[in-house]
């Protein structure tokens, strides 16, 4: 596990994504790189702008999407008050960042690997694909609701085999689920590795098909978090033994048969 820290870092850039069709909903944020030893895809950070007063106490968790020597990139969707305020940060603003937090996705360079992303769940896969030694063994499947250019899909599709399906009408969901079942079956048959990130219902689907079809799958969970460091016990989920485990430290990534959803 890499060394963790809490630092005030500067916002380098806040860029709207997919602005033409959905202005003002998705943002790519680059932060000055804290003094980390390293990080792994699947890990996340907690962010709290230093300008926030006490009205909103908690930091917000975001997957690490990419990082280099100078900067750390996250990809956020505005869904509520906190994300709205983070999206309105400007270059030069200061945020407290702690991380890298949590565990990470399994990496099996030689194994056919299927990435299942539900919407913004694509965020950690950017780093996964970029760091993977054999991207030719990876396939990405993105199920999305908003126009494709809202997601960092193109970037990934240049590196790995990528597919996507949009959910616009109720019947689309059935097709998406059918496709997911098919692909999970395919990777189960190849003894592949399946990694999933997205909203909870999406994770439930993956878990159910993986169980049914005998696939090896990991799911990344998004539980409400206060501390991000395993102390408050607010983010727990039931693990394979039925015990409450902290998603922030025992997760966010769990083998699908070792977690209750």
């Amino acid at each position: 596990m890499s060394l963790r820290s809490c630092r005030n870092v500067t916002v380098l850039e806040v860029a709207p994504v997919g602005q033409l069709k959905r202005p003002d909903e998705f943002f790519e944020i680059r932060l000055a790189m804290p003094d980390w030893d390293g990080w792994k895809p699947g890990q996340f950070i907690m962010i709290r702008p230093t300008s926030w007063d006490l009205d909103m106490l908690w930091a917000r968790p975001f997957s690490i999407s990419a990082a280099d020597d100078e900067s750390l990139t996250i990809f956020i969707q505005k869904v509520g008050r906190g994300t709205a305020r983070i999206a309105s940060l400007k270059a030069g603003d200061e945020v407290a960042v702690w991380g890298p937090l949590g565990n990470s996705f399994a990496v099996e360079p030689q194994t056919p690997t299927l990435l299942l992303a539900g919407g913004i769940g694509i965020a950690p896969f950017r780093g996964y694909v970029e760091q993977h030694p054999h991207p030719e063994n990876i396939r990405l499947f993105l199920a999305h609701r908003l126009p494709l250019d809202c997601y960092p899909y193109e970037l990934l599709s240049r590196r790995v085999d990528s597919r996507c399906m949009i959910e616009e009408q109720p019947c689309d969901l059935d097709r998406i689920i059918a496709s997911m079942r098919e692909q999970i079956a395919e990777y189960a048959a190849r003894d592949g590795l399946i990694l999933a990130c997205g909203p909870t219902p999406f994770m439930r689907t993956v878990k159910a098909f993986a169980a049914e079809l005998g696939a090896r799958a990991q799911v990344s969970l998004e539980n409400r978090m206060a501390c991000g460091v395993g102390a408050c016990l607010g983010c727990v989920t039931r693990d394979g033994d039925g015990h409450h485990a902290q998603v922030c430290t025992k997760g966010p990534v769990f083998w699908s048969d070792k977690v209750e959803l």
Partner: protein
Amino acid sequence: MDMNVTFGGLSLKNPVMTASGTFGFGLEFAPYGDLRKLGGIVVKGLSLKPREGNPMPRIAETPCGMLNAIGIQNPGVEHFVTKALPSLPWRDVAIVANLYACDAREFGELAGVLSGEEGVAALEVNVSCPNVKEGGIAFGQDPAQIARVTESVKKRAGNKPVMVKLSPNVTDIAVCARAAADGGADSLSLINTLSGMAVDIRRRRPRIANVIAGLSGPAIKPVALRCVHQAVRAVDIPVVGIGGISCAEDALEFILVGAHAVQVGTANFLRPDFSFRLVDEIEALLGEIGAKSLEEFRGSLELPL
């Protein structure tokens, strides 16, 4: 400035302690600061047997505060003593065990287990957990029970000092404070969370599975200060102030009304290095406001005639 404080059988290098349930067993925060910098660490509530705690969701954000109903999830006192305590720098920072039980006998047993542990500096008795349905409420809200539990813990605590943690959800906090003092408490700590609730109008459901939960954070600071003020005046034993501390000024407010030390809870979630930073900030602020010493400042609130 000399930041040492000695009270109720505890000797701390500064008045900053971390509050139970908000700092894990301490080790979770080791990456973010030197644990030995703190005055004390009160660990997560411990019960005799491991507890899974309440169902999810357990936490919710509220204006300047938060609700929690964790339900004292913990691996049990045995696990703490054998697995966590040895890794803690207990020679250099006071480790306070927070005891949770559902009757006086069980409290006594817990105290018995911990009384022989060199690494434990004191026992804090949680008679107030408002989260847990099995009798939690009744306890800390009934002065007779507070006295009985305190006696029971004291009897089995050996030479460990006993700090009794009071609930603010009572008609008269002074009566509860006196009950703990009469029961033999070496010190008091207060407040625990206020009993509160939040609902989601769209899903028409409570935001917390347990329905009723504990409110903490800056929102409750005025209530906490009032309770500490009343407790300090009600008893002769020392008092530790808890509730909504989110900056050095807040901490000094509790000391001004007479607290010997403070505990930082929810603010540890503002950033994990919060309590470490607070130690220096308090020292600096004391100088800035012209206090001669911590002791001179403590309890120096001037009341109108």
